[in-house]
């Protein structure tokens, strides 16, 4: 019996080739899409869980907050880690710190030809290998980072400096002034890590590079600090103990506004919004949520599709089912037969989906910059198979249980209650279309928002600005810098030169201020710059003047932004002039510009110029050069030539500010692309469903169409008749989808400090797209049916 079912099922699939193709490919696309998104979501959710002790590792962050302004930073004072271990021995088993000096990259060299600037270089304690689970290929995890002047390289970094030779015990020169011994070779850091390093230098190397105050103070907070809780110690105990630590050790000026929030290691990647001073941009749980929803919806569309088409097909078979009953078929055997057919189809779809995924994998990896491999398929293969089979069961269940319960008389007297007039079918079509319409709207809104983030008016001009790291090189002194600048400006291709503390629009630091008329110290965002700053970046003044070239004149001047004027309640920009911050005079008020990411609102900001070499060396890390955009290559060439003459100790390295910005919004840009692709896919699936359904339902009405034609109906009138049925459903779907999409996207946008408004045209576009697709597919099918020879259609009944 069962092999007969199998034979019939296969033959049925074959006889209905077109329907089967639509059925199988629609579900396959849906499964593949959903599985891909799930892989991405799983990857995002699994960050840092590869560490064996990830459940017990916490990061200590520092939040200094007074009156709604201040800093929430991923790193903490250098002394905090050891202090915690000493003060809380009953809670903590270990601690590990990583840090970078105030610089974006360091020069390492193995002879002059092998000199590179390393951006992913960190000073690290041995815990990286014995508390975390980063893999060490050679070297001792306990001792390799213990002694000063030790360095651990990843394999790819080692290749750069030593080729294929064994690097162990070899020497690398650090910033031209220190020799480091290679004591370990590490595996590449996994993609799913919030921290990726190329080079690790032993933390103890810092000992003679920092002052005692820097090492032991609790004000400067450059060290990423992780602690390992003892077994069975709940994190709440640590949380409870931290305020005491703040009171005991932190300087009085910030003691009351400071808290030390802890973050579970696995939460860092997705739950770090609002934190500054990260290793690298993190993920965002809002995106993960959006994508998980998209995955569910795409799968839902595919399943509804599948159910719809299966049901449509089985209505065609109502007569068969009725007949089989009169021939002695039991209900169970009918259910088994129909479920079996649905399962078989979904199984095929699963196979096709696997093939599709194997083909699309490289593109997907490229798109998401993750590194999924085929083995991930097997890892989640069980889920995939279960999902596929469940879909089959679900799709087969409705026809199987519903139709097998029919009394045969209904069926054999000619399928009343089936066909397009069935409420359930109509509802399914509406739901399917509503989901695709909602998804179109969501994509439009999301891609607009991402575009806005990339292109929004920042309040400064970032194009044509080169950024060059200059910290701790020959240009670190004021005179040398000015000299260099004068040389550059002789070339008309170089328009402006300035220097600043952090690349604009990406990072910033904070300082403590005592504003005039307010009897308290406050934390504000702060940026050390050199004169020419406002000019180089094209930032406009609301009042007052820019920093002057005569630096002595401005050694006790500051420029603030409009947000600061508002925050301090100083009235107009004019009013703010001559007021004082920390006894420093406000000489200018700049119009607001986005010195931080667009994810956050513009906060009050103070601009300083360094007044001595020490300040300059410590606070000014980047040179910013505005070059003429008409001949960038020669401008850069000139810059390089001059650099190599004047700064021989450091490799010439530059980046475009707008590239840096693009990187900052890279995840948005990428997600925008991914969203678009998945959306096109979901629309495609929905269309395929519509085509399938239209084909099928029109097939049901071939007799009616034939009769109408014999009675003299025109092709146009028949097409109109058939298409209007569908269009009604699509319109209902649009009316359901629009408010739902509006509500959810409004909530999603609320996560952004700067956002677009949802506009009516987005709904119109989505509606038009849906209507167009519906008219097109149904139209083609209708015309085909209407043009067919009536004898054919009448005979087939």
């Amino acid at each position, binding site marked *: 019996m069962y092999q*007969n079912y199998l034979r*019939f099922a296969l033959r049925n699939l074959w006889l209905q080739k077109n329907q089967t193709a639509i059925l199988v490919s629609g579900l396959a696309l849906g499964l593949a899409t959903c599985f891909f998104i799930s892989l991405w979501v799983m990857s995002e959710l699994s960050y840092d869980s590869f560490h064996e002790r990830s459940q017990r590792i916490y990061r200590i962050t520092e939040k200094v907050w007074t009156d709604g302004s201040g800093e929430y930073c991923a790193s903490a004072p250098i002394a905090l880690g050891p202090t915690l271990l000493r003060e809380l021995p009953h809670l903590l088993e270990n601690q590990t710190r990583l840090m970078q000096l105030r610089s974006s990259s360091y020069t390492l060299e193995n002879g002059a030809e092998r000199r590179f600037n390393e951006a992913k270089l960190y000073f690290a304690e041995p815990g990286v290998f014995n508390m975390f689970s980063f893999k060490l290929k050679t070297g001792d995890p306990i001792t390799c980072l213990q002694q000063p002047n030790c360095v651990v390289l990843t394999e790819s970094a080692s290749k750069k400096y030593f080729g294929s030779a064994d690097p162990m015990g070899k020497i690398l020169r650090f910033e031209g002034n220190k020799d480091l011994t290679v004591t370990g070779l590490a595996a590449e850091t996994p993609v799913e890590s919030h921290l990726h390093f190329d080079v690790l230098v032993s933390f103890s190397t810092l000992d003679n590079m920092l002052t005692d105050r820097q090492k032991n103070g609790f004000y400067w907070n450059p060290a990423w600090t992780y602690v390992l809780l003892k077994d069975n110690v709940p994190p709440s105990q640590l949380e409870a103990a931290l305020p005491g630590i703040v009171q005991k050790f932190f300087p009085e000026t910030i003691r009351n506004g400071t808290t030390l929030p802890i973050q579970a290691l696995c939460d860092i990647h997705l739950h770090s919004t609002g934190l500054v001073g990260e290793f690298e941009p993190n993920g965002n749980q809002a995106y993960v949520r959006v994508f998980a929803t998209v995955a569910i919806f795409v799968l839902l569309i595919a399943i509804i599709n599948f159910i719809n088409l299966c049901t449509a097909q089985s209505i065609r078979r109502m007569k*068969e089912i009725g007949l089989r*009953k009169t*021939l002695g*078929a*039991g*209900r169970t055997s009918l259910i088994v037969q129909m479920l079996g057919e649905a399962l078989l189809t979904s199984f095929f779809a699963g196979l096709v989906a696997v093939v599709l995924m194997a083909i699309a994998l490289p593109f997907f990896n490229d798109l998401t910059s993750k590194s999924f491999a085929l083995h991930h398929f097997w890892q989640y293969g069980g889920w995939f198979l279960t999902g596929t089979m469940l879909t089959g069961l679900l799709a087969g269940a409705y026809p199987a249980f519903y139709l097998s319960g029919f009394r045969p008389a209904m069926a*054999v007297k000619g399928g009343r209650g089936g066909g397009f007039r069935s409420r359930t079918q109509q509802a399914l079509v509406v739901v399917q279309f509503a989901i695709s319409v909602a998804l179109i709207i969501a994509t439009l809104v999301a891609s607009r928002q991402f575009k806005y983030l990339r292109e929004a008016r920042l309040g400064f001009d970032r194009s044509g600005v080169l950024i060059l790291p200059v910290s701790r090189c020959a240009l670190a002194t004021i005179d040398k810098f000015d000299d260099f600048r004068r040389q550059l400006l002789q070339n008309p291709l170089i328009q402006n030169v300035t220097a600043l503390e952090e690349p604009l629009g990406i990072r910033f630091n904070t300082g403590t201020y005592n504003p005039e008329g307010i009897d308290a110290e406050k934390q504000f965002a702060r940026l050390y710059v050199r004169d020419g700053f406002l000019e180089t970046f094209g930032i406009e003044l609301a009042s007052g003047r820019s920093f002057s070239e005569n630096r002595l004149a401005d050694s006790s001047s500051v420029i603030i932004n409009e947000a600061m004027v508002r925050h301090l309640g100083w009235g107009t920009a004019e009013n703010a002039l001559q007021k004082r911050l920390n006894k420093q005079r406000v000489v200018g008020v700049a119009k607001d510009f986005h010195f931080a990411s667009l994810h956050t609102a513009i906060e009050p900001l103070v601009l300083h110029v360094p007044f001595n070499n020490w300040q300059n060396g410590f606070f000014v890390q980047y040179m910013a050069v505005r070059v003429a955009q008409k001949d960038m290559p020669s401008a850069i060439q000139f810059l390089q030539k001059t650099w190599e003459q004047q700064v021989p100790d450091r490799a010439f390295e530059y980046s475009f500010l707008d590239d840096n910005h693009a990187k900052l919004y890279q995840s948005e840009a990428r997600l925008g692309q991914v969203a678009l692709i998945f959306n096109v896919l979901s629309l495609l699936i929905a269309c395929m469903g519509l085509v399938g359904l239209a084909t099928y339902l029109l097939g049901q009405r071939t007799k009616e169409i034939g009769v109408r034609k014999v009675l003299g109906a025109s092709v146009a009138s028949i097409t109109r008749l058939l298409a209007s049925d569908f269009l009604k459903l699509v319109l209902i779907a649009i009316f359901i989808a629009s408010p739902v999409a509006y509500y959810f996207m409004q909530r999603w946008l609320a996560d952004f400090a700067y956002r677009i408004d949802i506009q009516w045209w987005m709904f119109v576009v989505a509606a038009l797209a849906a209507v167009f697709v519906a008219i097109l597919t149904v139209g083609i099918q209708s015309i085909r049916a209407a043009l067919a020879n009536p004898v054919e259609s009448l005979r*087939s009944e």
Partner: protein
Amino acid sequence: MIELKNIERYYPTGSLKTYVLRYVNAHIAEGEFVSIMGPSGSGKSTLLHILGMLDEPTDGEFWFLGEGVHKFNERRRTEMYREYIGFVFQAYHLIDDLTVYENLETPLLYKKVPSTERKSRIADLLDRFNMVAKKDLFPSQLSGGQQQLVGVARALIGRPKLILADEPTGNLQSPQAKEIMEVFKTLNREDGVTIVQVTHSEDNAKYGNRILHLKDGRVENEELVKH
């Protein structure tokens, strides 16, 4: 075998009830060959559907082999189809996706008849109805009359104890029709199969031993056939 008491069947049309069958009383004993006649729309097919348990009466009692059919559940009805009833539809109703051979085989599969026996029974019937050459064709590739023949053959193949046939010869020429009537007669005489047929033809009706005349849903009169 069959006992009908005050059978009624109506369809709700708006708020009114349209009666298709009313006060139908009948008794059909095992081994009888009964013909039902009546004008178009008089309820013949409806009555046959009720006898075949395809449809339920809206009122009245239907006893089959001493059991109340209203108490039958799905499982019991399936059993009836497997063991007792062979149905010939007015509109033939073959399964479109199955070949002639497979259409004939299906009831045997449900009855779990072993494979060799299936083959010989099907071959036998195909031969008897001159359809051997057509066995691999699909219903849509047959003429109306040929489809009807397959429909009859399918009703016979399970060797039912009761054959319910709705105008089994409506599309056939008289010699073919006659042949089918002969087959029915033989089954009835020699194997004791009970037969209820609906027909418009006086001649065909005479093959039976009794004729029920239906009009407007009522049994107008009963006539015994004299042989």
